[in-house]
């Protein structure tokens, strides 16, 4: 940058001047020296030309040769201009000077002849050109001048041109003249040209030396001065750079920041002192490091790049970075500018967000928008529009053939668009489509407007489409429910009256259903439009109007039953329910419940009678229970006494009069006695049975196994001569009345013991087993058994399976057992076969 500035601002005209002459300075280049020589030649021409001009002008004026006067003045003016007007480019001046000399020479030669001032001008032209443009140009000019002289000689010789003042023209003296001119030209042109060439070479050598010194770091005084100037200018530009809002910076090729303007302090949030001379990478957020390194490396390779980076301060800048080259064109680092685009990005983001919102809103509302360009015939569609048609958005424009194929009534939809464009008819249509990919049928609602240009010509149509499938379905469902409601109203057996609160807070009868006419026996349409008081004056004295108003206004439902009696009989009954349908509206539903109420009344009556009967029966039952008790008591006391008497006196007879009786009589008396004993046992058994039914039960945990074991011990003690094996499963605990259960087990085990009396290896089992998923207890023996054909009689009182002579018994035992088990919620049954033993199963309900 510094080098560039220096070359750009190198001064051109800082040379000392003297009388318009530009004096060369040390270290100047060839061009300047040439200029100097050139200026000198023209200065001489101007000064000496004046001396030759004045007499010539005088002669011409005297001879009134005005053309010559004007030529002299013209040439002289040109010389002066060339001499003093330095703005004219150097080469133009040179060619102008050369041309004037040449033309002056040509004119002089033609007019005055081969000897004289004409040749001097030509030589001057050659001299100037060789000095200014070099040796080669000088030689060309020499040749040109010789040619000119030969041409003039030929023209003269052929009489085409004649010299006005020349009388002795011959070829010989013309050739002599040309020869002398040639020699004179060589003498005057070549040496200066050679001199100039030599000087030029010298200058070039010196320049090279200076250049070498510069690269060696040695600056000449002038350079230092220039450098200072450049620095001042640089300061000026830095001030400018410091006052702009963009960052300007330079960096070296080692990744360090070498300079930055003050804007960078604001943007990075760090002082220049803390950033300059240090690596710049940490100034940026880590996410951007890779791209920064990439850009920096590429810039150092010579590329000019733009990119966006974010500082750790959070500010994002757009960077333009360029390679920084020294005067030799080698890259020494980078420089560039950066613009804060945070706000712009934020705005872009905000714009993006609001666009997205619009999209989302469209998606949520299922509204798509479209634009039909009339000139192109293309239809632009929003994302949602594509989505509604179920078409992938490959381009912005809707594929019309695909869209049309989906529309079920494509003709009508198209016609609507045509009508809008051509007739300006309102475009507000609903139509169904079948989405191609999902085969789903949806209903769309489309609205569109025509957009015209300033001249009123239609240019496009903008429109929206909305998915109203759900709304349409909801409407259909609503209509269905309305129909259903209406049908239900019409066919309901329940009467309905509809009321509405009017502006005066009065309930007005607004409608009814057919059942209402039938139930009330009147035509209800006569009430329509009347207030409740006008329609049904008899209700005014009741709470009904207030209840109805509460239902309509406050939504408080009310129901009531009204029964009309006549002579204590139900003549009619109705059930009424009033409730709010919509605010300010209510309906009363009423049904004829006469039959139901009558039936209920009948049931109440029957129930009351039944209860009375139960009370009576209970009393009777209690009385009979008491009777039974006293009966049992009597039996217990009174039936036994005579038995004992019979028994006692029979024995007395035997004892006291035994000697007078024969054996037969004695046997009979023995039978009398044993019968009385049996009768006593029967009475005892009956008493026990009756007690079982009457006594209160006390439920406890009962160990049946232990009870069974005790009973078996007793039984064996009674008949120690018998060998009976008892197998009792231990730990059979149940809930029940211990006394009653003992009676039951005593009977069952006693039976088993009794009926195995004739079995050699008697075996009696008591245990528990599973039968049809139920836990049952069993008492099993291998004794006499019985025929299952008679098993129905088994548990009846006084029913016996065996002859008393075989197995004595009362016939009450199993009845007693059954009664005990029934009182425990259980049951008993048996399996047996004659001579193969019997098994009695029983269950007990779980009583807790």
């Amino acid at each position, binding site marked *: 940058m510094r080098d560039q500035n220096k070359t750009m601002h190198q001064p051109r005209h800082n040379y000392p001047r003297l009388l318009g002459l530009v004096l060369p300075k040390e270290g100047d280049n060839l061009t300047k020296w040439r200029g100097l020589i050139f200026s000198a030649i023209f200065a001489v021409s101007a000064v000496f030309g004046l001396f030759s001009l004045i007499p010539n002008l005088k002669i011409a004026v005297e001879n009134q040769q005005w053309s010559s006067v004007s030529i002299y003045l013209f040439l002289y003016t040109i010389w002066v201009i060339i001499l003093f007007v330095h703005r004219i480019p150097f080469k133009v001046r040179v060619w102008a000077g050369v041309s004037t000399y040449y033309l002056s020479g040509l004119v002089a030669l033609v007019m005055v002849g081969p000897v004289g001032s004409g040749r001097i001008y030509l030589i001057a032209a050659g001299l100037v050109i060789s000095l200014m443009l070099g040796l080669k140009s000088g030689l060309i000019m020499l040749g040109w001048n010789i040619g000119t002289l030969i041409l003039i000689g030929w023209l003269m010789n052929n009489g085409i041109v004649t010299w006005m003042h020349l009388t002795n023209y011959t070829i010989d003296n013309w050739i002599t003249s040309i020869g002398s001119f040639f020699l004179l030209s060589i003498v005057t042109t070549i040496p200066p040209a050679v001199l100039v060439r030599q000087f030029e070479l010298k200058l070039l050598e010196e320049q090279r030396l200076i250049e070498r010194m510069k690269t060696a770091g040695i600056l000449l005084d002038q350079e230092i001065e220039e450098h200072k100037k450049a620095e001042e200018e640089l300061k000026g530009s830095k001030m400018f750079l410091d006052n702009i809002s963009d960052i300007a910076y330079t960096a070296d090729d080692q990744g360090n920041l070498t300079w930055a303007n003050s804007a960078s302090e604001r943007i990075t949030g760090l002082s220049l002192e803390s950033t300059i001379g240090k690596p710049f990478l940490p100034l940026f957020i880590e996410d951007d490091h890779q791209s920064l390194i990439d850009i920096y490396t590429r810039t150092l390779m010579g590329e000019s790049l733009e990119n966006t980076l974010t500082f750790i301060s959070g500010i994002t800048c757009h960077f333009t970075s360029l390679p920084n080259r020294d005067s030799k064109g080698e890259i020494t680092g980078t420089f560039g500018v950066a613009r804060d685009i945070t706000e712009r990005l934020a705005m872009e983001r905000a714009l993006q967000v609001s666009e997205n919102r619009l999209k989302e809103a469209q998606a949520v509302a299922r509204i798509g928008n479209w634009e039909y360009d009339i000139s192109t015939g293309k239809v632009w569609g929003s994302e949602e529009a594509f989505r509604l048609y179920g078409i992938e958005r490959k381009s912005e424009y809707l594929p019309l053939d695909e869209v049309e194929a989906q529309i079920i009534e494509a003709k009508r939809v198209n016609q609507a668009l045509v009508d809008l464009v051509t007739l300006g008819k309102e475009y507000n249509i609903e139509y169904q489509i079948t989405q191609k990919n999902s085969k789903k049928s949806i209903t769309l609602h489309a609205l569109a407007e025509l957009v015209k240009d300033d001249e009123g010509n239609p240019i496009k149509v903008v429109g929206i489409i909305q998915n109203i499938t759900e709304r349409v379905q909801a409407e259909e469902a609503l209509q269905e429910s309305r129909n259903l409601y209406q049908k239900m109203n019409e066919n309901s057996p329940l009467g309905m009256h509809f009321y509405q609160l009017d502006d005066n807070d009065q309930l007005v009868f607004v409608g009814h259903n057919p059942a209402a006419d039938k139930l009330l026996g009147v035509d209800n349409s006569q009430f329509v439009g009347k207030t409740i008081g006008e329609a049904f004056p008899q209700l005014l004295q009741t709470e009904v109007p207030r209840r109805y108003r509460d239902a309509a206004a406050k939504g408080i439902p009310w129901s009531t039953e009204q029964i009309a009696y006549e002579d204590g009989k139900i003549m009619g009954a109705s059930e009424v329910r009033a409730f709010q349908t919509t605010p300010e509206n209510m309906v009363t539903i009423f049904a004829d419940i006469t039959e139901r109420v009558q039936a209920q009344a009948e049931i109440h009556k029957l129930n009351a009678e039944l209860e009375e009967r139960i009370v009576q029966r209970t009393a009777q039952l209690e009385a009979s229970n008491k009777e039974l008790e006293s009966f049992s008591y009597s039996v217990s006391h009174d039936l036994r006494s005579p038995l*004992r*008497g019979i028994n006692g006196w029979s024995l007395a007879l035997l004892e006291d009069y035994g000697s007078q009786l024969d054996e037969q009589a004695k046997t009979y008396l023995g039978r009398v006695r044993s019968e009385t004993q049996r009768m006593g046992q029967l009475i005892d058994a009956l008493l026990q049975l009756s007690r079982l039914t009457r006594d209160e039960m006390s439920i406890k945990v009962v160990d049946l196994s232990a009870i069974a074991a005790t009973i078996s011990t007793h039984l064996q003690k009674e008949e120690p001569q018998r060998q009976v094996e008892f197998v009792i499963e231990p730990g059979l605990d149940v809930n029940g009345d211990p006394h009653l259960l003992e009676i039951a087990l005593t009977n069952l085990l006693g039976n088993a013991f009794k009926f195995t009396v004739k079995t050699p290896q008697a075996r009696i089992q008591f245990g528990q087993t599973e039968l049809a998923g139920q836990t049952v207890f069993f008492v099993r023996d291998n004794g006499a058994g019985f025929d299952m054909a008679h098993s129905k009689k088994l548990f009846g009182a006084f029913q016996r399976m065996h002859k008393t002579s075989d197995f004595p018994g009362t016939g009450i035992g199993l009845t007693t057992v059954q009664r005990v088990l029934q009182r425990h919620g259980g049951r008993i049954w048996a399996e047996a076969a004659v001579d193969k033993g019997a098994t009695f199963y029983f269950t007990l309900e779980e009583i807790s």
Partner: protein
Amino acid sequence: MNPKTILLVEDNPSDIALTQRAFGKSRIANELVVAEDGQEALDYLFARGKYTGRDESHLPVLVLLDLKLPQVNGLEVLRQMRLDPRTSRLPVVVLTTSKEEQDVAQSYDLGANSYIRKPVDFTKFAEAIEHLGLYWLVLNEPTPSRKRTGYTSSLTDPGTTAPKRS
């Protein structure tokens, strides 16, 4: 006259005869006084009615009491006996045909010393009478005479003075 009499309260003549027969067979020599209903039994014990003038200090050593009696039943007789200090400690054996629980319980509650159910079989009945006589007349130590001890507190708690024996 044997001073150790036994009072039999029994209305059934057949039973009276059988009981007498049983006593005879078991060779119990004590005099058996028979009262045929409850009222008569009480009259005898307290020397009232037709027994007015009887030496009331002469009490039986044992009362055999049937429960089912005409007019005043056995339980009532027992109750009144226990209420009276003179008879409150007198051994009473209920001898009846009933086996009803309530009868047994009430008897003991009122201070019966024993409860025997008359078996139908006379042989067993005779055995029972024999055991009974042996126990109450021989083995059992009779209660001391109230007159001699002057003990009067039994009015409030007859149960403690009539130990239950079964």
